Each structure stands twice: as C-alpha cells, then as structure tokens.
C-alpha cells in the first residue's frame, strides 16, 4: 500500500505600494489607476507604505478607502505603513480611519501582515 499525497499550494500576492511625496487631488488619480490595475489582476492584498508621504488630503484618502472596500469584497484587505509626517497622519486621525485601517511595520508585511 502506498501513501497518497495531495499537495495544495496557496499563494497570496501582496503588493506593497511605497508612495513618496504629496498624495492629494492632483496625484490621487495616478494611484487609483495603479490600484485598479492590480485589482483587475485579482491582487486583493495591498500595503500602502505611506512612510514618505508628506501630505495626504481627502482625495488621497478616498483612494485608500476605495481600495480597502474593493479588496475586502474579494476577501482581501489593505494595510498601511504609517506616515512619518504629521501633516500626512493628521487626516487619518481626524477622520478616525486610523481605527479602520490596520497599520503595520515594514517588517510585518510578510508573513504576519495578513
């Protein structure tokens, strides 16, 4: 009698989008396009690395929220690496999205990020 071995491999694609500069109404459409492209490829686990984001406004926030909603609909999620600049972190606190998005340290992306 021989043993039957069935192998199942689960691969999760995690995309880390490291942003540098202002994420405002002018730049938000470019980020939305990048997110759209990954979501179309069934990438449903996205990390926004906001470490070097100098300023974040509600248009930029809308892209993060939109991506969060769409990944969750596909059983995925979004994680944030917190911005260094207070000017970028302020909007996340004022809107209380710091309680909605799970923030992680860069070292947590793999394997504990998801």
């Amino acid at each position, binding site marked *: 009698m021989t043993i039957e071995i069935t192998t199942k491999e689960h691969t999760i694609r995690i995309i880390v989008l490291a942003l540098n500069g202002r994420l405002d109404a*002018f730049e938000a459409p470019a980020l939305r396009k990048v997110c759209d492209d990954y979501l179309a490829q069934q990438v449903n686990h996205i990390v926004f690395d906001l470490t070097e984001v100098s300023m974040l406004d*509600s248009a930029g926030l809308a892209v993060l929220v939109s991506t969060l909603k769409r990944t969750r609909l596909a059983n995925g999620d979004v994680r944030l690496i917190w911005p260094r600049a207070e000017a970028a972190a302020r909007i996340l606190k004022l*809107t209380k999205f710091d309680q909605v998005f799970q923030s992680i340290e860069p070292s947590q992306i793999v394997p504990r990020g998801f």
Partner: protein
Amino acid sequence: METESLVIPATYAALRVPAERLRKMLLTAHIPEATIGECELALQELLTNLVDHAYNGDDRKMITVRFQLDTQSFTIETVDYGRRAQLDLDEVGMPDPASLSEGGYGMALIKALMNDVRYENEGRRNTWRLVKLFQTSP
C-alpha cells in the same frame, strides 16, 4: 499685519501654488509646523471643493486666494464666481468611518482644523473665510 493675494486657475495642479505660499508665509513668521500643516490641509480641502463643486472641473475659471497673518490669527479667504454652495455649515459633520464613505470629508475637515469657517454669497460671488487662531485648539 501681513497679507498676500494670488489668483489661480481652478485646477488640481494649480492648488500647490497657494499651498507653497501659505507654508512660506507661516514658516517665515515662525508658526509651529503642526499649525502650518492644519492650515495647509484646510486650504487644500477648500480649494479642491471649489474646483470640484463651484466650478465643476472647468479649468478656465479662476479662484482668488488671500492670506492675512497677524499676531493672533491666520485667515484664508477665497473668492470664486462658480456655483453657489448648497450646504448648512452647522449641519456638516465627519462621516462615520465604518461606512467607508469615499467622500464628504472636505468641509468636515475644514471645520475640525480651523477655528472659524464662514461662507457668503452675493449674487454670483462666493466668499469663503477660514480663520485659525494661534495658541488655541479648534
């Protein structure tokens, strides 16, 4: 008292010009970075609202932006000739984050960041006036 005035086209790209002027003016006056950041975000949200809602993305339209700085306060005033704002400032509140709404934050942020927010409409002229008092919390 120090004042500065500029006129910009109603485009997202042009919004950086007044933001840079604001930052330079307040940095020169040694205003704390946290306060500068709050004023900059309020300005950004107001101007984005004007581009989107007053002028509905018409990049041929112009917005006048004025800054006034004194020892007690910083005032941002804008003038546009676009669509009249249809909102009750007293009723504006931050959306529930659990709703994952993608919009509706701009004016609520402005109210949270600034000490006084006023809107006036006279004929086709719309005037927004945002005031930040120094050394107090909004």
